[in-house]
């Protein structure tokens, strides 16, 4: 896809019917044949709908928008669904927010109780620490969520069929087989983009899918990747290199049978050096 020829502004014009025939033809062709371009068009379309719902469109754009997105009952239902999702998110966020403004309520309570300053200061400090801890915890939780999402996306069967440009491939044997072999040691600087681990499965029992848990052996919480499908070389697991830091890593690979029951687990280890 030629990024420079496909800006958000152009796509908005296209979606509102404000481009010439030749450009429209080009964009429609890209939309049908280039999956990346298609997704970009749909992302911009979603934002256009969002702008309509927030009343951010000019009168002309609003009219153009409604001629395309508000005519049939199906289209109107789509708009209602978008609105329902947005309203839910705003409602939920408004509900959650009072937690962070709890201080003012607390202050009022203190005032009512007429506490002396030497009580108020430690309490305020404790509350500030608690809020900072909560913020740090929320931040790390969101980061974890994003990584978990990314891992799931990278390891879908469709994603695994693609071969990204920057990818290092590594083959790992399970601990039991490796036995006398030296443990695999990698240089952090050698890894860029994605790392694809091919986990050899040497057990007699084979499974339709596998579950992988990867973690650094320093007490980090593991990330779990579900629904990995085996191929002739083993079970492939992709990781973004940027989430890997110095230390020893453990991958636990568990076979999952057709009924979703966990079977044999194999352990794989590798070490990352700076």
């Amino acid at each position, binding site marked *: 896809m030629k990024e420079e020829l496909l800006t958000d502004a152009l796509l908005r014009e296209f979606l509102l019917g404000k481009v010439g025939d030749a450009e429209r033809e080009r964009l429609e062709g890209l939309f*049908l044949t280039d999956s990346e371009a298609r997704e970009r068009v749909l992302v911009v379309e979603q934002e256009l709908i969002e702008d309509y719902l927030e009343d951010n469109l000019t009168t002309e754009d609003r009219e153009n928008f*409604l001629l395309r997105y508000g005519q049939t009952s199906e289209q109107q239902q789509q708009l209602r*669904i978008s609105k*329902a*999702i947005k309203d839910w998110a705003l409602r939920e966020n408004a509900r959650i927010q009072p937690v962070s403004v709890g201080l003012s309520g607390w202050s009022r309570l203190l005032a009512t109780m007429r506490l002396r300053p030497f009580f108020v200061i430690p309490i305020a400090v404790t509350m500030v620490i608690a809020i900072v801890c909560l913020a740090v915890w929320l*931040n790390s939780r969101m*980061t974890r*969520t994003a990584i978990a999402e990314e891992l799931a996306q990278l390891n879908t069967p469709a994603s695994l069929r693609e071969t990204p440009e920057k990818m290092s491939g590594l083959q790992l044997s399970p601990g039991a087989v490796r036995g006398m072999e030296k443990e695999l040691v990698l240089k952090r600087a050698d890894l860029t983009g994605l790392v694809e681990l091919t986990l050899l499965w040497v057990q007699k029992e084979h499974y339709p899918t596998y579950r992988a848990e990867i973690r650094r052996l320093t007490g980090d919480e593991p990330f779990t990747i579900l629904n990995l499908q085996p191929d002739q070389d083993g079970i492939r697991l992709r990781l973004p290199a940027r989430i890997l830091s110095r230390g020893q890593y453990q991958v636990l690979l568990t076979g999952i049978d057709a009924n979703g029951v966990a079977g044999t687990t194999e352990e794989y280890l590798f070490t990352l050096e700076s």
Partner: protein
Amino acid sequence: MARDSAIPPESFEEILAWLNADRDVAAVMYVQLRHDLAKLFMWGRCGDPEGLTDEAFDRVAKKIHEVRPTYEGDPRLYFRAVANNLIKENHKKVKTHVPLEDVDLPDRQTTEIDEEIAADMEECLQLCLQKLGANKRELILAYYAKEKQAKIDHRNELAQKFGITVETLRVRVFRIRESLAECIERCLKRKAQGK
């Protein structure tokens, strides 16, 4: 309204074979192409995108035996050309557009969704949010936390927090939101059929 397409089985098979040699891949492409053509009709301001999509496939099915052997390039572009003709024909047929005041707008401007529809929507939304899983739900929640100008800064901050670009964040949210919207749509359809 979508109508039942009457593509003969052999033409249908030929369309699949034209789209891709692997039948499974072709089937996925076929479903996506239907969806995408409906979008083209919608963007072309046609009142019945689903029906016109059927019509486009019918037309291609009728001509595929003669077109396929000589056509060069991505077959989806041939479908685009057929769709384009249909849009032009549709505009000729419907000389006048529906005046804006006659368009049944969603609730913000004019209509009040009646309570039953609103209740169904809420029920389906909650059901689908449950199915979505906590991580995705939290991401959607965070992404739509702000409106208007404030949302731009907020989304930049959110992308920074996740260590990804805003573009990646937009695509990620788009995919989640699409699956959520599809789930709600299916749920509403089931409810409508049950009444």
